[in-house]
């Protein structure tokens, strides 16, 4: 009986998790089914969707890149949207799918990693981070069934293994590790085709950047929507950020 006073301290293994804290203490802030309409499809043309993000491995780590366009139905919703978010010093998230929930998820994920790091005084392993993101995507399943799917790419530098690694997800939170490159979003097929031709083992950072820009350009060029941008604007709007490299 007396044990109950302290034993919960050991059962509370999720104590360093920010999303658990948010759900417990401030459920109204937690992005989830409650904040979405309970039934019926969401008006997809009213919600901006990201187009293309990609990640590829190179000699010293991983590069993530995305174009800067978001579409809502057949309209360009934004030409300046950011899709690559720094999750922490060694990893990043590239978002595709419904931009609103995806950005919210990226923000929650960033806070989650930082919170863990501050409370525990240590970083999560790359597998731990990837797993956590998968759980967050799974919690979005109900919204995904209504057309507000979020399917990010997660990539980072694995300090234990000393290599860059990348993961893609499906709407149920399923996590699939890719070895060399992958792309997500409406232009992902063209980007992947392009990466398939251009990607080489042990590329330098500059080569890898060039390859990712080229892949994004071809993805932009093949956009079928009437307002698809010309490739040159697509390429110039591409922004690449090195999310992880041991030299940093």
């Amino acid at each position: 009986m007396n044990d109950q006073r302290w034993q919960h301290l050991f059962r509370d293994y999720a104590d360093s998790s920010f999303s658990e804290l948010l759900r417990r203490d401030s459920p109204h802030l937690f992005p989830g089914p409650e904040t979405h309409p309970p039934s019926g499809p969401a008006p997809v043309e009213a919600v901006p969707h990201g187009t293309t993000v990609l990640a590829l491995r190179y000699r010293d780590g991983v590069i993530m890149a995305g174009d800067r366009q978001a579409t809502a139905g057949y309209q360009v919703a934004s030409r300046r949207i950011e899709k690559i978010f720094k999750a922490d010093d060694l990893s990043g998230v590239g978002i595709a799918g419904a931009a609103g929930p995806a950005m919210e998820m990226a923000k929650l994920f960033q806070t989650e990693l930082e919170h863990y790091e501050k409370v525990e005084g240590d970083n999560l392993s790359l597998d731990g981070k990837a797993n956590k993101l998968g759980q967050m995507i799974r919690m979005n399943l109900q919204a995904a069934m209504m057309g507000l799917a979020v399917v990010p790419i997660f990539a980072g530098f694995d300090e234990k293994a000393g290599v860059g690694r990348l993961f893609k997800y499906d709407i149920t939170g399923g996590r699939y590790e890719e070895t060399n490159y992958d792309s997500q979003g409406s232009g992902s097929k063209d980007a992947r085709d392009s990466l398939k031709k251009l990607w080489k083992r042990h590329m330098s950072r500059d080569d890898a950047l060039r390859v990712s820009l080229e892949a994004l350009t071809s993805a932009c060029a093949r956009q079928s929507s009437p307002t698809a941008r010309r490739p040159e604007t697509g390429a110039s709007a591409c922004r690449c950020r090195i999310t992880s490299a041991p030299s940093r």
Partner: protein
Amino acid sequence: MPLPYYVSPEQMMKDKAEYARKGISRGRSIVTLEIRDGILLVAENPSTLLHKVSEIYDRIAFAGVGKYNEFENLRIAGIRHADIKGYSYSRGDVTAKALANAYSQALGNIFTQDIKPFEVEVLVAEVAEGNGSRNEIYHILYDGTIEDERNYAAMGGQADEIRRFLKDHFREGLPLDEALQLGVRALTVTQNKTLSERDLEVAVLDRAKERRKFRRIPPEALSQLLGTQR
């Protein structure tokens, strides 16, 4: 039936305060200095894993002396406060003042309501953003008393002596290495011993850093910074 005993409120508060002070005075001290590039926190702490100084948020650091489990609880509560506030509003809305007030309320409540007060003192420091604002250092005592300090602050066993020493020796705008040497001298002011880099835990809120300003100084870098004088 035994009579319920009566203790006057004055006596009870006095006893509690004495109890808390005794606990704190047994512990080692922490010095905080405003330096040219931010705020420096120097703690005497032989453990490399159990921290006394840590990061709360982008520009905010925490330091605690006294009983480890008690200030560790306060530290985690502070991180939660800051992260939830930053998540629901924006990162810029998280301030040391709000956090220091929360600590003051918490410690004040514990002091008056619990049988055993917390044997801790905590410090919340926020480095200025640059454009005209200035650094903020709040020192919160075991009973919830809150003070805002300028230039330097000290807490722990020898806090009074350290404060007297710093009053005479502190100068504004010191670079990191000189400030660190001053801080170490202040920590040893009452003791006949020297502190090596293995006995110290040092961190800075570095204004030059991007977003998260908190940075620990590892022992190797520490010996270099201290070695310049020896």
